[in-house]
């Protein structure tokens, strides 16, 4: 009967039931769906971080000056996280734990990628071809170099018109040099004949020293790199995926560029801008509505000269033929004796619009890209990585580019997309950590230079004592080698030596690392494994700190934590507000039924019966509507199982990929059901309290 009264009451007051039920329904729906949505984001972020970079735990030196974090605002370059002195031992100890899958050595730092400008690189090619007597290559490269110098001359003319008198004076020498380089006589030095090579190399030096610096450079590119055991990194972080080129062979030194970094920072600007427009169109932006696209097109038209300048005669012919159909006939300007038809054609070509963009984008890559330098560092190149070491000095290490990689689904992530992978040995050298080569090299240098090890106590005597022969011997021997070998040769030799060498696992592991990532077999047991790891490491007194991935993630960890706080706060506020509304509505309803409740009391209903009746009404209301809300949320999540496409970089990081698929999580389901039950129980407290205070007298006084 009480159930019936409760149900009938709910039915009898349809508007109230719908209003209160609607709130409960919406609350349960929102909390289940919303929490699933946010939980999925949280899980995705966790997966993005754990399976790409951090592992489940990070090991670092205990008591280091700065708190260890993977993603600090300054990349950690200014921070001192200490070092793990005996990585090999740490790895052996930790990997012996049953739930540990792998321990990966690591170290982060910034480097500068200096690749020189376009002219620098072409001049380097020219020098090689002159040295090797490669006639064809010399001819082809020379054409490009001369075009680049001509383009500089053209730009200089434009600049002159707007330059003030002071700067004009300063640029006078440059102008004279450019004038010299513009003359046919200058280029005749490259014509084969007696002693041509010497003349050519002199001319090259002039171009390298006086002209190349006038060409706007690509600028210095800052790069964040992660020194690691690349082979083990690749096989243990399951989000890693090779994109271009090849993997660094096991044990070899080398670098793998992050595809995002490679495309955004090292790619030809014109090509990058076209990619950017294409990506926007692919994501649904209309070309004509895209203000940035119009700006990019304008910039690309302005860059036509730098593209034209990279083409030799053969490639110029190929480009003109390839673009002719798309661009149509270019009217020749009869008034301009130096009319450059290729430049005019490229300018028309780059003036793209919504109708022809996709066709011309394809043409760019099919026809133009094969003839220009698409990236400032090519796969297979060896380039010099410069980085501030631990001691604050700039250190340089030549590294070979083997290929590019990406973290699956995180191609555009600004966080994981920033890391490039460098082998552990190069990292140690760049960071200032001692490697077997540098030790051997140092010994060799000591021997050659006659340097002896001197103890601190005897230092004064050994250096300044009357009997000392140390200084004189050192001075004599120190520069002997330098006379015969140029610096350049020494560099080349060094690069070749280290590129060819394969390091054993023993060598990679034996040495210092800054930190290490620990990957688990079963992440659910991470708490227990963390404790086990701490106990194991502290028992041998290695001074290693174990940090969970959230704490170790620094700024990202804080972001995820804030995200969770917002999530909990939003859930709490929403629950509170809806409970207040539900409670208030039920209280009003109870007060409206004072007479009825009083009558029931008068005819013999106890306070318990009244409490059960009102309580049951609220509970039934909550169960029916809350249950419907939870079911709707589950159905909605099932309906969205195909996922939503995600546009922005940050959203892709949150989504853990280009498509966001919200999934029903157990915690969200529990929150939804919990809210339903809680709203049912909590919202009965006050109304039932009021109801049980109603006396039978109220029935006697009732006037309806």
């Amino acid at each position, binding site marked *: *009967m009480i159930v*019936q*009264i409760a149900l*009938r*009451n709910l*039915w*009898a007051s349809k508007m109230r039931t719908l209003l209160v039920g609607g709130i409960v329904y919406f609350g349960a729906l929102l909390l289940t769906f919303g929490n699933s949505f946010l939980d999925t984001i949280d899980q995705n972020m966790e997966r993005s971080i754990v399976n790409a970079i951090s592992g489940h735990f990070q090991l670092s030196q205990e008591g280091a000056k700065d708190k260890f974090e993977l993603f600090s605002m300054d990349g950690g370059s200014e921070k001192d996280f200490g070092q793990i002195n005996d990585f090999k031992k740490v790895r052996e100890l930790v990997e012996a734990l049953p739930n540990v899958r792998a321990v990966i050595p690591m170290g982060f730092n910034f480097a500068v990628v200096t690749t020189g400008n376009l002219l620098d690189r072409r001049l380097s090619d020219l020098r090689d071809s002159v040295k090797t007597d490669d006639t064809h290559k010399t001819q082809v490269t020379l054409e490009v170099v001369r075009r680049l110098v001509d383009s500089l001359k053209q730009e200089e003319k434009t600049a002159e018109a707007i330059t003030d008198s002071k700067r004009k004076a300063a640029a006078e020498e440059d102008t004279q040099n450019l004038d010299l380089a513009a003359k046919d006589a200058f280029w005749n030095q490259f014509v084969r004949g007696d002693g041509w090579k010497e003349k050519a190399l002199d001319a090259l030096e002039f171009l390298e020293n006086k002209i190349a610096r006038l060409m706007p450079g690509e600028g210095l590119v800052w790069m964040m790199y992660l020194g690691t055991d690349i082979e083990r990194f690749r096989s243990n972080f399951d989000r890693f995926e090779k994109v271009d080129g090849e993997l660094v062979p096991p044990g070899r030194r080398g670098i793998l560029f992050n595809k995002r970094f490679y495309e955004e920072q090292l790619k030809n600007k014109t090509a990058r801008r076209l990619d950017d427009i294409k990506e926007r169109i692919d994501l649904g932006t209309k070309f004509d509505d895209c203000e940035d696209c119009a700006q990019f097109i304008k910039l690309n038209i302005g860059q036509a000269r730098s593209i034209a300048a990279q083409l030799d005669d053969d490639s110029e012919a190929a480009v003109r033929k390839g673009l002719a159909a798309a661009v149509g006939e270019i009217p020749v300007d009869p008034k301009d004796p130096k009319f450059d038809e290729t430049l005019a054609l490229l300018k028309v070509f780059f003036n793209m619009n919504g109708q022809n963009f996709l066709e011309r984008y394809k043409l760019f890559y099919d026809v133009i890209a094969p003839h220009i330098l698409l990236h400032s560092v090519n796969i297979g190149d060896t380039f010099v990585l410069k980085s501030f070491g631990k001691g604050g000095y700039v250190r340089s290490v030549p590294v070979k580019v083997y290929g590019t990689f990406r973290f699956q689904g995180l191609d555009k992530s600004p966080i994981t997309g920033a890391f490039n992978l460098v082998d552990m040995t190069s990292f140690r050298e760049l960071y200032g950590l001692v490697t077997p080569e540098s030790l051997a090299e140092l010994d060799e240098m000591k021997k050659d230079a006659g340097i002896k090890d001197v103890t601190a106590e005897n230092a004064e005597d050994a250096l300044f004592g009357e009997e000392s022969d140390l200084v004189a011997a050192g001075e004599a021997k120190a520069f002997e080698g330098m006379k015969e070998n140029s610096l350049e040769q020494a560099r080349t030799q060094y690069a070749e030596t280290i590129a060819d060498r394969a390091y054993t696992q023993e060598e990679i592991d034996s040495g210092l690392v800054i930190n290490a990532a620990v990957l688990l077999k079963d992440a659910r047991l991470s708490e227990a494994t963390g404790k086990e790891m701490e106990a194991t490491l502290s028992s041998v007194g290695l001074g290693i700190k174990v940090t969970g991935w959230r704490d170790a993630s620094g700024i990202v960890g804080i972001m995820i934590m804030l995200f969770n706080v917002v999530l909990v706060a939003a859930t709490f506020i929403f629950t509170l507000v809806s409970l207040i509304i539900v409670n208030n509505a039920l209280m009003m309803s109870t007060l409206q039924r004072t*007479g*009825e409740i*009083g*009558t*029931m*009391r*008068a*005819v*013999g*209903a*106890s*306070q318990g*019966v009244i409490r059960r009746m009102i309580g049951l009404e609220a509970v039934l209301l909550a169960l029916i509507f809350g249950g419907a809300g939870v079911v709707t949320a589950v159905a909605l999540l099932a309906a969205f199982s195909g996922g939503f496409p995600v546009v922005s970089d940050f959203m892709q990081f949150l989504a853990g990929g280009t498509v966001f698929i919200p999934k029903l999580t157990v915690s969200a389901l529990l929150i939804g059901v919990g809210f339903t039950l809680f709203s049912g129980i909590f919202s009965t407290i006050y109304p039932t309290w009021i109801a049980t205070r109603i*006396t*039978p*007298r109220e*029935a*006697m006084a*009732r*006037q*309806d």
Partner: protein
Amino acid sequence: MQPNPSSPGSSADGIVVVKDVEKSYPLGEIMVHAVRGVSFSIQKGEFSALAGPSGSGKTTILNMIGCVDTPSKGEIIIAGQNTSGLKDKELTKLRLFKVGFIFQTFNLVPVLTAYQNVEFPLLLQKNVPKAERERRVNMYLEKVGLKDKMMHRPNELSGGQRQRVAIARALVTEPAIVLADEPTANLDSQTGQEILDLMSSLNENDGTTFIFSTHDHNVISRAHKVLWLVDGRLADPKGRIA
């Protein structure tokens, strides 16, 4: 039994015994003395009326007899049980088993049918088997002439029909006394008369004890015993304090 409108009765063995009862309550800063030292008794099977003008204390006395209110002083004995000092739980039980209520405004549970309204007190008693409940509900609905309307809800019934349902609900537990607070006040004279006839016949045929509070002369004239009240005291029919 012949009506004896002026005698309050004083037998201590009545079904209802009211002894020196006083009821006072504060109203703002002043103390209202609603009932001042009233004593009387009602015998089993009597058809009695508490009569008097508004504010004379008749509803207050009725409430105290119905265990809805408690006296400030004195004692009330219902079917041999002294109600003084009883807790809410015990008073509730007394109401459920010994007292039936008929209200001026019928006070049916709007979401229940006529049948369910009548059945409700039996369900509260818990120990009445289903078959017995059905028998009694059907019997009392038949007695009040509403067997054919048993599945109707209150809003589908007329005022008179609702009061009949209320009478059936008051009788279904077969209480020692039935209290009726101005039972005809919200009915037209014709329907009021019919309701009085019904209660009178139930009294005569089944021996049910009825106590009314009323100022309606038609009701007073039908009562076996009339207790006149003026300013919270018993009086004679002319309004003189006894």
